[in-house]
C-alpha cells in the first residue's frame, strides 16, 4: 500500500504533538508565553508599527491623523540643517566613546583589576558616575560649567582668565556634553573590562613574564587578546548608547545654543514632541529605529559572529 511508507513519520508527528501536549511543555507555553507576548506586542511592536504609519501624516496629536503627506516628513527632515548637526553629533559621540572613553576605561581597568581593598575603593569611585541618574548628572555639570558660580569659573579665575561660558558657546557646548558623557559612562566599560581581566588565567601572565615579556607586552600580547570578546561587547554598548543619548543633554544645554548640540533623540523630542508634530517625530523615530537595527545587524556580522577569527 502506498500509504504505509508514509505512515511512520505521520504517526511520529502525531506522537510528537501528543508528547508536546501532554508532557506539560505546551501547557507551560500557553500559560507563560501570553503575558510577555501581549505586553511586548502592546508596548513595543504596536507603537513601532503605529509610528511607521504616523510618519506619513502631518498630525499634531489631536484626533485621528487625516492629513496624508506621503514622504514629506522624511524630505523635511533630510533637508533640515539641525538634523544634519544631530547626526554629526551622534557620530562624534560614537567616536569619542570608541577613541577616548574605551581606552581610558581599559587603562583604568588594567590599573585596578586586581582584588585588593584599595582597588575596590577606586572601583567604587570610578563607578559612581554611572550609578547617578542621567538628569542629576546633567544638572550637576550645568552648575560646574556655569561661568559665574561654577567650578570651571573659579578655576579660570585663579588663572586670571575671562569668565567663560562653555554651555553658551556654539563651538564648545558639544565638547562639554561629550566630556560629561565620557565621565558618566567610562565606569561602566571599566567594569566590563575588570570582569574580563579577572578571568584571564594567571599562569598565562606568569608564563609570559618568565619568557621575558615586559608589563606593556603582557598587556598588549596576553591580556588584550584574551579580553577581546569583552571589548567587542563594550564597543557595541557604546555605539547603541550613543544613538540613544538624551537625558544628559536636556538639562545641560537643552539642545542649544541655537540647536547646535542635539543628538538624534533630543532632535526627535524637541522637533517632534514638544512642537506637537507627532507625524514628523514618528518619521525621525523610524529613521532612528532603522539605523539602530542596521548597526546591530552589521556589527553582529562584522565583529561578533562566532565563526570569525579574531
Amino acid at each position: 500500500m502506498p500509504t504505509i511508507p508514509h505512515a511512520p513519520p505521520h504517526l511520529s508527528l502525531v506522537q510528537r504533538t501528543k508528547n508536546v501536549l501532554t508532557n506539560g511543555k505546551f501547557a507551560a507555553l500557553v500559560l507563560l508565553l501570553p503575558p510577555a507576548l501581549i505586553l511586548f506586542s502592546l508596548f513595543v511592536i504596536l507603537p513601532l508599527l503605529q509610528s511607521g504609519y504616523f510618519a506619513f501624516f502631518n498630525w499634531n496629536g489631536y484626533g485621528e491623523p487625516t492629513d496624508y503627506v506621503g514622504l514629506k516628513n522624511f524630505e523635511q527632515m533630510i533637508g533640515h540643517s539641525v538634523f544634519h548637526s544631530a547626526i554629526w553629533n551622534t557620530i562624534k559621540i560614537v567616536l569619542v566613546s570608541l577613541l577616548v572613553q574605551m581606552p581610558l576605561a581599559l587603562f583604568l581597568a588594567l590599573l585596578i583589576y586586581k582584588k585588593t581593598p584599595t582597588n575596590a575603593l577606586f572601583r567604587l569611585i570610578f563607578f559612581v558616575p554611572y550609578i547617578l541618574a542621567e538628569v542629576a548628572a546633567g544638572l550637576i555639570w550645568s552648575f560646574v560649567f556655569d561661568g559665574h558660580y561654577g567650578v570651571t569659573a573659579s578655576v579660570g579665575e585663579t588663572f586670571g582668565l575671562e569668565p567663560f561660558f562653555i554651555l553658551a558657546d556654539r563651538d564648545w557646548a558639544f565638547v562639554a556634553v561629550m566630556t560629561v558623557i565620557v565621565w558618566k559612562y567610562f565606569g561602566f566599560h571599566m567594569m566590563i573590562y575588570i570582569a574580563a581581566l579577572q578571568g584571564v588565567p594567571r599562569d598565562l601572565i606568569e608564563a609570559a613574564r618568565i619568557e621575558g615579556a615586559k608589563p606593556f607586552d603582557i598587556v598588549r600580547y596576553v591580556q588584550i587578546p584574551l579580553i577581546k570578546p569583552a571589548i567587542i561587547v563594550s564597543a557595541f554598548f557604546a555605539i547603541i548608547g550613543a544613538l540613544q543619548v538624551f537625558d544628559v543633554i536636556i538639562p545641560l544645554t537643552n539642545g542649544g545654543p541655537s540647536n547646535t548640540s542635539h543628538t538624534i533623540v533630543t532632535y526627535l523630542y524637541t522637533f517632534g514632541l514638544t512642537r506637537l508634530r507627532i507625524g514628523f517625530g514618528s518619521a525621525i523615530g523610524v529613521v532612528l529605529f532603522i539605523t539602530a537595527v542596521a548597526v546591530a545587524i552589521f556589527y553582529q556580522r562584522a565583529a561578533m559572529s562566532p565563526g570569525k577569527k579574531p
Partner: protein
Amino acid sequence: MKHMLGAVGIAVCSLCTVAAQADTTINILRVETGDPAQKAYLSTIGKDYEASHPGVKVNFEYLANEAYKSKLPTLLQSDAAPDIFYSWGGQTLADQAKAGFLKDISGLLNSDFLDTVPKSAVNAYSVDDKIYGLPIYATEVIFWVNKDLTAKAGVDHTQIKTWDDFLKAVQKIKDAGVTPIVAGGKDKWPLHFYWAYLALRYGGADAINEAMQDDGENFESEPFVNAGRTFQELVKLEPFQSGMMGTSYEQASGMFGDGAAAFHLMGDWDYLPSRARSQSGKGLSDEQLAIMPFPMIDGGEAGADATFGGINGWAVSHNAPDEAADFLQHMISDKYQREAAKAGIFIPIVKGTDDAIDNPFFQQVARDLTQSSYHQIFLDQYLGASVGATVNDISADLAQEVITPEEAAAQIQEAWDFQ
C-alpha cells in the same frame, strides 16, 4: 440564582446611591505655578463653590509646564480628560477646538457676565464665534528698569520713547561700565519678546493675522524682516550679560534682582519671582524699580500703542458637565478678581476691577492694557506649538547673529506652511 439576584441587587443599589447623591466632579488641570498664594486663592474659590452648590466637587491638579504641554493632547483624547484646563489661547486652542476636544459654552454663559469681560479677551478663547473657554488674567511684557544703574550711567528711562532713544541709552549704559540688559537666552522665549514686539510695532495686529490667513502677505513680508533687522541693531551693541545663551529665565530673573543689569524685558509676573530668586532674597526695592513700555519705532505706526503679553485662562473640554461653565463664571466673578488684584496675585481681566490693585507697577500695567489698541498674545503660543518654537529659535539665532533677518522670516514661513 440567589447569588445572581444578590449581585444584581447590589448593582442596582449602588446605582441608586450614585443617583441620590447626584455627584458631579469638576476636574481642573493647571500648569504648575511657583506662587503658593495663587494655589490657595484657587482652592478657596473651589471650596466656596462646593459650599454653595451641594453635590458638586471641585478638584484642582497641577502639572509642570513642559509635562503639561506634551501630556495634554493624549490626556484630552482619554477618559481621564480634565473638565477645565489651563490655556494660553491662540492657535493651540484653535487646534484643540478643530479636533473636537473642546466644549462650546456660548449658550451656558449669562450675557450679564459676558459684558464684564473685555470682548478682545473673550475672542482669545473663541473660534468662529463659539466660546470654548474664558480668560482669567492678562499679562504685559515691559522693560523692568533698575533706576540705580540707569542713574549711574546718566540715563533717564522716562525719556526713552523711541527705539533710537533706547539704543543710545544702551550704549551710554555700556560706556558707563554697566551691563545694559539681562536675558534668559537659554530658554529662547525671553528673546522672542524682542522680535515679536518689534514685529508688532511694525505690522500691528493686521500683519500677524494676515500672515496666518495664508492669503496676501505672509511671514516673509516687510514687518517681520524689519523686526529682525531692528533687533540686530540692538544685538550689535552687545548689550547682554556675558554667557547670555547659557542663562535660563530663572537665572536672568535672579540676576536682575541682584542688580546685575539696567534692563530686563519680561512680563509683569516677574515682580515677586525676581526678588525671590535674587541672592539676598529681597531683590530690588520698589524705589529702585521702574517699568518702561517697549519703545516706539520710526515707521512703526501700525502697532505704536499695541501691547504684547498674555491672556491666560481656561478651556473647557468636550465631555465636561455644564456645571464647568457655571463654575468658570463663579471663578471669574467681580469678587474674586478684586481679591486677586488686591493680593497682587495677578492683573484681573474683568472690567473695572483693576482699581483694587495696590501695587504701583501693576496699576501701570493695568492702565497700559486698558489704553492698548490691541493686545497681542505671546507669539510662541499664538502661532501654535510648532511655529511658536520656530519663532523662539530664530530669535535666539538673531541674537547670536548666526542668521540674517531674511532667513529668520523665511524659516517662520516654512514652519507655517508645513504644520
